[in-house]
């Protein structure tokens, strides 16, 4: 039986600054490794719903845009989990538990639990998140010292174990070094952000007050981007609340 990975409480900023890892193997669970070497398989958080959730017409998937005051993220719900989105509306304070995924270089959540919470849960979440971070930073610093002094992963892991430090942290340091080296180039130019930026510019130029029909946005950017990529960028902006749809297939800037 597959082991259920536990959740970690962290801010969205720590998640967005981390590296997404999709391990090899059909049943391996995706995770995000934070800059302090914490592997997050499931995220637990408290955030504000920034726009009314969107549900597909057939009800098989939906999305909601969440903001915890440190960063924001799109949370998706599939199949039976779409019912989690039904009672939720813009402005609600929610607690969520979710698996982590990445699509076109952007981190996303796949919701498992979503519920309305009282304002004091925000304080509890923030206190637990900062406690997780303090502990992680402390152990990561010790593990890094061992790793640098031993200069050999196997020896470093053995020494970490003897000193009461989780040897997986040594493994995490190796993994982080590899990820930092191999993902920096990809971070220099974020093509998704560029398309979204062009869509927003086009919206400003084309909107005469009633919103802009999707076909007009596609036509405006046809020389630079594929229709599918533009459509995806519009959906992303919509799910983040940067755009809204005053009537079917017409879009307007939210602010």
């Amino acid at each position, binding site marked *: 039986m597959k082991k259920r990975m536990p959740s970690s409480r962290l801010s969205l900023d720590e998640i967005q600054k981390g590296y997404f890892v999709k391990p090899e193997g059909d049943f391996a669970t995706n995770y995000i490794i934070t800059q302090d070497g914490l592997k997050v398989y499931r995220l637990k958080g408290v955030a504000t719903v*920034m726009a009314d959730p969107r549900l597909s017409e057939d009800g098989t998937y939906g999305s909601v845009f969440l903001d915890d005051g440190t960063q924001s993220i799109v949370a998706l719900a599939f199949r039976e989990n779409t019912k989690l989105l039904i009672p939720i509306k813009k402005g609600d304070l929610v607690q969520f538990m979710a698996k982590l995924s990445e699509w076109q270089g952007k981190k996303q959540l796949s919701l498992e639990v979503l519920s309305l919470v009282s*304002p004091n849960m925000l304080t509890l979440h923030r206190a637990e998140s900062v406690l997780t971070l303090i502990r992680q930073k402390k152990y990561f610093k010790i593990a890094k010292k061992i790793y640098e002094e031993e200069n050999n992963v196997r020896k470093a892991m053995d020494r970490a174990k003897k000193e009461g430090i989780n040897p997986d942290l040594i493994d995490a340091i190796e993994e982080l070094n590899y990820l930092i080296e191999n993902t920096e180039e990809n971070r220099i130019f974020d093509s998704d952000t560029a398309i979204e930026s062009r869509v927003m510019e086009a919206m400003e130029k084309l909107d005469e007050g009633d919103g802009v029909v999707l076909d007009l946005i596609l036509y405006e950017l046809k020389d630079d981007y594929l229709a599918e990529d533009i459509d995806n960028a519009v959906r992303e902006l919509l799910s983040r609340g940067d755009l809204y749809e005053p009537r079917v297939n017409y879009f307007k800037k939210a602010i």
Partner: protein
Amino acid sequence: MKQSFSIEKDIREIKGDETLVSFIGVVVSIDPSTYMLIIDDGTGALSVSSDSLYNVEKILRIVGSPYKEGGQIIVNSEIIQDFTDFNFDLFRKVQQIEKEVYQ
């Protein structure tokens, strides 16, 4: 590109040129004719435009876009959350720890 998340700030830190900010404070006065609320978070006070009127002394969390008008900073609210029964003092203590850890 527009920043896509709200930055939590003390009211005294808000300059008026941010895209989206959030803060928690107490309603200290209201203007029913303009739907303007004055919110005080203990570090300062500013005007918040609102779609609804709230009672004085109510604790609210505001997410909105600040702007300057006649030397005054006004926040155009995007979201107003009712934080009645919120333990503001405890939250301030947690914020203080966060500042020490995250900086």
